């Protein structure tokens, strides 16, 4: 008979949803167990997603700057040499420091961390939810890793198991040639030709990393445009910019099959004009992610999932089974780490009786290419479709002092505001540090601000943020520098 331990809340998955939920719940006075099958905390985001990819994006950007731009600044250097192994070590070090940081936070908050795979066992006679935790095989962490299966019980369970890379139908991952983002963050040598299946955030970011390091990169996208949910002007501008950087695109193209020949592969695709083939040595499949519900025992318990395999939840993030909650990539909405964290806090606060809500309209999204693309709110296409009367204002970084100093003059800021109320409905930025600039837009929108509000706010000179103010001025045809 396995040992039984009872908590106020059991959180399954220690990614940006799960660990935040565990900490917030502890702050609210609950006794919390956090079950994670990985040896390290932080989930996909920290271990093989957001963080390692940004580490490599920053490293590869510096490399590209040294190679292509130093001379323009009057810095004469010999062509820089790439030490890929050192770059990967640095990336691993960044990940290691951050996952250790999460482990420290979990310990500091007195959260019981349990290393193992969770399987839901339904409610016991006393109404408590039961979870069986099977010790994780293979990569054992000595700490908190029980020798045998144990049963945890709690009145509430929070599922935060996240998502996994979806494959192309009929083309399974092999970990060597046909790979997911996880492997593409750890190539031990430069591929000659990387084919990226999927023109979404992940494919474009990782494609950029390897392109900057000198790899030939071809992105194949089924739809006629990249980043289809982004404001069209933004995705068009990014497309042009990435092409200029040497990334090849095949849009409206469907991958039919991959034939492996030794360490190489031949990708068969159809771009609408017929079947063709292309040689490469790596295929990164980044066509989306699917919720990681398999193995948890959700089907056995009869938890309702929607057609995308995501859990159907109510306002409290409760699934169709009372006492079982779900957040993050398991539930509808954009699959973003910060969305999961926000839901985590709100879900737990609602458990404690607080009137918390996630304001989904103000969740920013960022694509960390260079230039970066960042958005919050509605796109121009969405406004048109909803017949919302709007005005648009735009300002190009080319006309901005600071952008010129940085020699980063690509891109623009676009602000969409309601025609009558002037309320800001959407802000779309492509350009240097768009990921940081978008915060101002999200703030203004969260405060129900107007384009005039932005125009009336003093922005420091010379900064990139001035572009936001100028775009707001332009919306009323009052831009000074355009």
């Amino acid at each position: 008979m396995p040992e039984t331990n009872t908590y106020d809340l059991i959180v399954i998955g220690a990614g940006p949803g799960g660990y935040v939920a565990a900490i917030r719940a502890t702050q609210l006075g609950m006794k919390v167990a956090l079950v994670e099958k990985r040896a390290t905390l932080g989930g996909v985001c920290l271990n093989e997603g957001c963080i390692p990819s940004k580490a490599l994006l920053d490293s590869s950007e510096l490399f590209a700057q040294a190679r292509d731009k130093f001379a323009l600044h009057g810095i004469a250097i010999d062509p820089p040499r790439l030490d890929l192994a050192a770059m990967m070590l640095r990336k691993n070090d960044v990940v290691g420091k951050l996952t250790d940081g999460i482990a420290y936070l979990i310990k500091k908050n007195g959260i019981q961390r349990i290393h193992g795979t969770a399987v839901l066992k339904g409610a016991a006679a006393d109404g408590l939810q039961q979870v069986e935790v099977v010790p994780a095989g293979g990569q054992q962490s000595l700490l908190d890793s029980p020798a045998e299966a144990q049963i945890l019980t709690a009145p509430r369970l929070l599922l935060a198991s996240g998502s996994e890379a979806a494959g192309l139908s009929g083309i399974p991952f092999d970990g060597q040639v046909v790979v997911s983002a996880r492997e593409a963050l750890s190539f031990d040598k430069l591929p000659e030709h990387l084919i990226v299946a999927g023109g979404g955030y992940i494919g474009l970011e990782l494609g950029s990393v390897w392109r900057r390091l000198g790899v030939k990169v071809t992105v194949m996208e089924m739809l006629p445009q990249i980043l289809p949910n982004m404001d069209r002007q933004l995705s068009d501008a990014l497309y042009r910019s990435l092409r200029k950087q040497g990334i090849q695109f095949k849009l409206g193209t469907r991958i039919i099959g991959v034939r492996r020949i030794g360490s190489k592969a031949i990708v068969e695709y159809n771009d609408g004009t017929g079947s063709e083939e292309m040689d490469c040595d790596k295929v990164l499949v980044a066509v989306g992610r699917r919720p990681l519900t398999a193995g948890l025992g959700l089907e056995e318990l009869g938890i309702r999932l929607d057609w995308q395999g995501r859990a159907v939840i109510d306002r409290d993030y409760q699934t169709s089974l009372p006492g079982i909650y779900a957040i993050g990539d398991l539930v509808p909405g954009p699959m973003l780490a910060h969305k999961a964290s926000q839901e985590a806090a709100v879900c737990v606060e609602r458990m404690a009786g607080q009137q918390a809500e996630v304001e989904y309209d103000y969740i920013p999204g960022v694509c960390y290419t260079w230039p970066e693309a960042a958005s919050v709110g509605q796109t121009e296409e969405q406004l048109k479709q909803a017949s919302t009367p709007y005005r648009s204002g735009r300002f190009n970084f080319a006309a901005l002092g600071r952008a010129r100093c940085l020699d980063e003059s690509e891109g623009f800021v676009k602000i969409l505001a309601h025609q009558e109320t002037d309320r800001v409905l959407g802000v779309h930025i492509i350009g240097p540090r768009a990921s940081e600039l978008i915060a101002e837009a999200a703030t203004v929108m969260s405060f129900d601000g107007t384009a005039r509000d932005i125009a009336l706010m003093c922005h420091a000179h010379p900064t990139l943020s001035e572009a936001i103010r100028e775009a707001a001025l332009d919306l009323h045809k009052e831009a000074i520098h355009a």
Partner: protein
Amino acid sequence: MELKIPEVGESVREALLAKWFKKNGETVRKDEPLCEIETDKITLDLNADVAGTLSIVVQEGATVAVGTLIGTITEAAAGVEAALGAASAQAVEKLSASPSSPEVRREMLEHGISPEEVAGTGKGGRITLDDLFARIEERAKQPPAARPLADKKTTPLPVPPPVQSQPVSRPVVAEPAAPIPEPAPAPVVRSEEAPAYSSAREERRPMSPIRKRIAARLLAARQQTAMLTTFNEADLTRVKALRSSHREHFMQRHGVALGLMPFFVKACVEALKEFPMVNASIDGDDIVLHNFYDIGIAIGAEKGLVVPILRNADRMKLYEIDQAIAGFSEKIKTNRLAITDLEGGTFSISNGGVYGSMLSTPILNPPQSAVLGMHAIQDRPVVRDGQIVIRPMMYLALSYDHRIIDGREAVGFLKRVKEYIEQPEELLLEG
């Protein structure tokens, strides 16, 4: 089609929009319940008169006057265009609300206040935290009836108490030893940190209009009458025998089980005829004697006690009384009880026995002057013809307003009720 708070009774001027069953923009079918409104007397559902798309004007939790437009239904016929129109109307509606901020919106939810209630004083009519708190304070000063109930759609989930009394072990940071042996510092009394989710220790929730009404009326009954209670007991042997021997026959003929209540209603009516003062009420300096017998039956509903009235109970047959009471229970369950079901009444009966009460003092329902309390039936030893025998006994209590009912009358009345219950045949012969 416009959706308005309907007239529900003469004395009702406003209602709490307690809950929307449908979301803004949702498609509704004809006759589907849309929302629940609560007045200080009753709770009722509003149904859709037509099929179409619902557009909500007043959010739940708000108290609004009778006749207020709370939503509209765009009829379905228009199809896609209507749906599109509704979507953009929704967006515009959201935009026309006063601007605020994330914290202000959160606090509005916590306090059950809708943006429409708050006058924004910030830039562009922005609702600031100060504006919101001013509104909360102002609301606290308003008469209870006008205060909206907190946002009920997000009733706090009951947080179970922590599993262990022992707090979760946190790393203990060792206090640095005091370097100088100063006189011992006054011990810092650290009050035990209250759990942040205070709902485990206490939970504060606003009273519903019905509960406030009950509270005010019961307090008034205590303060404005000279209430006294007299007791007696009744032997239910014969009533029980009568019920069991006629149960099936009665059920077949009338479709209801022959209950206990009709006997007590009948017994009270007969006794009231003999003691008219018990059926009277005080109006100013006058005593008003009622020559009709409208008997209130106290029924415990989920939201609080309600006392629907059996009109002219003296003219009702036993099965009619049973059917009427069953009808009230059904109406309460489905929120269909009407104000007219509750108004008036000359005497009330309250049956604490259904909850197992052995003895209690019922409280008057002014302006009525008396109320009969029934209790649980218990087999008790009693003396009959010099022998100790076991009989099904019930204690009876009569609370009465001593201002117009003398002790002699009250005791006499209750004794008559007892006699009728013990000799139900007499009732049947009389009635």
